[in-house]
């Protein structure tokens, strides 16, 4: 009896381990012809999140379609932002990949570590700032989209209270809050934003709680910088308005979703992959917005927004594109009332990249 049980346990354990192995490795393809360039992607979440990772995967598929047979792509999903990432990145480098995209901020040091071991492999790290001869960085100017939705929110709010759900206090998120508030207060000086930090990129339950809390406190527009569409759903249920995040989420909240800021990675991925195929790849820093099509607005919801307002929003998009409008135009004051951007100036990229303060008019402090 005992021996038999032991055998059964061992078999069960092998099945479970094999199953886990199968699930984590099913996306690693091995059969590739020699002249093809292999492009690898490291994802922080599942491509099914309908947010951040989903849009990177859309970019990957675009790359595959554009370059056809000259490349093949692979990805590893759900890679945690810790030492484990080194293993995953190295796995791609070792298996003959020529170009590897690591698509989250906290893969920064891990990317550089593996890059130093594989000088012939090219690396592209999203939203980071550390580069090397074979490591480029790239990011999108999402804050330009925040200027557009800030304008819409300022015009649409009736309670003058806007609820803003945020993940972690990092420059990208703070920059978004500031750009949003500057645009909203420009068209509606009475507007107030209520901010809730949920300390998670992705927890649908908590995001819904935060949205409901804000609505309960009188917010009639919900803005989010977290990854699930739960806040938009909560807004739909409560009969208030919202903006989608990272991808078009109108299908989930058709009566609340006014528009969304979309991340468009495809053309960039295709260009960089083409550069590797042509042998012209070089290390550089890319930060693109509306102008280069890396950030786009989802179709404006005509049921909710007047045609005048849609025209205004489109005019802002265009203004940012041709440089007549900037999200951070002086004069801008910080909360202490000090002038940080002079009249006639715009905030430079250095200030934007390290922005860790709220502009004047936003209540509360940036969490430390």
């Amino acid at each position, binding site marked *: 009896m005992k021996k038999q*049980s032991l055998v059964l346990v061992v078999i069960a354990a092998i099945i479970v381990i094999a199953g886990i192995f199968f699930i984590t490795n099913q996306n690693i393809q091995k059969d590739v012809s020699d002249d093809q360039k292999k492009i690898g992607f490291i994802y922080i979440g599942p491509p099914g999140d309908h947010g951040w990772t989903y849009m990177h995967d859309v970019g990957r598929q675009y790359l595959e379609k554009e370059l056809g047979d000259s490349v093949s792509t692979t990805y590893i999903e759900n890679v945690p932002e810790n030492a484990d990432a080194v293993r995953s990145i190295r796995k791609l480098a070792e298996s003959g990949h020529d170009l590897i995209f690591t698509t989250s901020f906290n893969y920064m040091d891990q990317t550089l570590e593996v890059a130093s071991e594989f000088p012939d492999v090219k690396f592209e790290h999203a939203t980071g700032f550390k580069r090397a001869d074979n490591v480029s960085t790239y990011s999108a100017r999402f804050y330009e989209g925040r200027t557009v939705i800030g304008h819409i929110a300022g015009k649409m709010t009736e309670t003058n209270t806007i609820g803003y759900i945020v993940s972690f206090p990092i420059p990208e998120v703070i920059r978004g809050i500031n750009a949003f508030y500057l645009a909203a207060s420009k068209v509606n000086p009475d507007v107030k934003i209520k901010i809730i*930090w949920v300390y998670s990129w992705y*927890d649908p339950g*908590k995001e819904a709680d935060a949205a409901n809390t804000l609505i309960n406190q009188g917010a009639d527009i919900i803005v989010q910088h977290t990854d*699930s569409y739960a806040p938009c759903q909560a807004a739909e249920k409560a009969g208030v308005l919202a903006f989608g995040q990272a991808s078009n989420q109108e299908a989930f909240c058709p009566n609340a979703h006014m528009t969304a800021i979309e991340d468009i990675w495809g053309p960039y991925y295709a260009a960089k992959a083409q550069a590797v195929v042509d042998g012209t790849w070089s290390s550089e820093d890319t930060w693109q917005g509306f102008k280069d099509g890396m950030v786009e607005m989802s179709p404006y919801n005509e049921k909710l927004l007047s045609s005048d307002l849609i025209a205004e929003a489109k005019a802002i998009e265009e203004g940012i594109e041709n440089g007549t409008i900037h999200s951070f135009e002086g004069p801008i004051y910080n909360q202490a009332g000090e002038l940080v951007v002079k009249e006639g100036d715009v905030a430079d990229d250095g200030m934007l990249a390290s922005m860790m303060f709220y502009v004047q008019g936003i209540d509360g402090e940036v969490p430390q």
Partner: protein
Amino acid sequence: MNIELIIGILNIVLISTTPLVFAGIGELVTEKSGVLNLGLEGLMLVGAVTGFITLVLTGNYFYSLILSIISGVILSGIFAFLVLNLMTNQIATGLALTIFGIGLSAMLGKKFSGTPIEGLSPYYFIIISFLLVFSVGYFLSKTKSGLIVRAVGENHNSAYALGYNVIKTRYFTIIFGGVMSSLAGYYISICYAPMWQEGMTAGRGWIALALVVFATWKPWRLLVGAYIFGGVAIMQMNLQAFGVELPGQIFNMMPYIATLIVLVFISSNKVRLKLSAPSCLNIPYEKNS
């Protein structure tokens, strides 16, 4: 503060705490019979995804609920077979169940994530959760079957000597716990945040486990504890939105810190007796010994 605001806050607390009550009360019964099931997170995810998929495919809430429950019965049945009949290590098997559940739910749900569904009102579940806690409390303290469950958890050899079927009792409590976890998962994907996305329970299974210890294995304390955990989380959100500065990370750690403190108390044996921890918790039962 006006009355509407307070009612609104209570409403959000009720909605967000209910999954903890379901998963917690199930685990409490399992642990009372002397079995530690660390697989809650996995059970919840599989319960959530099976309910969601069935709802998408059939459009019928009743079928989706039944399938979600069946998934809990099957998975916890496998767990019970492993730990009771094959006498595998409960902690290792529970962890394996969680890892397995995370992977299985992700695989099953891949095609369905991002399908919009019509959510179900959470209020039925909230009412059931209260009734459940009181029934479990009554069952454990006032009925003969409840006494048998406790006897099995306190000393399985004595219970066996008295003629009670230890294995059968534990099968019953493990499957009850599994079904409650599936219901918690079902509630999350159908009522709380009507959607399916991988890993959407976001650690609530672990909080429920902590809650059982925090409640020192007493049903009514579990209810109070769940509402303290849930209430604190919602209160800190409200304070943030009112502009009060709070270290949010610390509030996220609160359930675990509170549980650690209770664990420190329990580790002294005299207090432990008073706190009603089942003595046979996590000790495998061998019939011939």
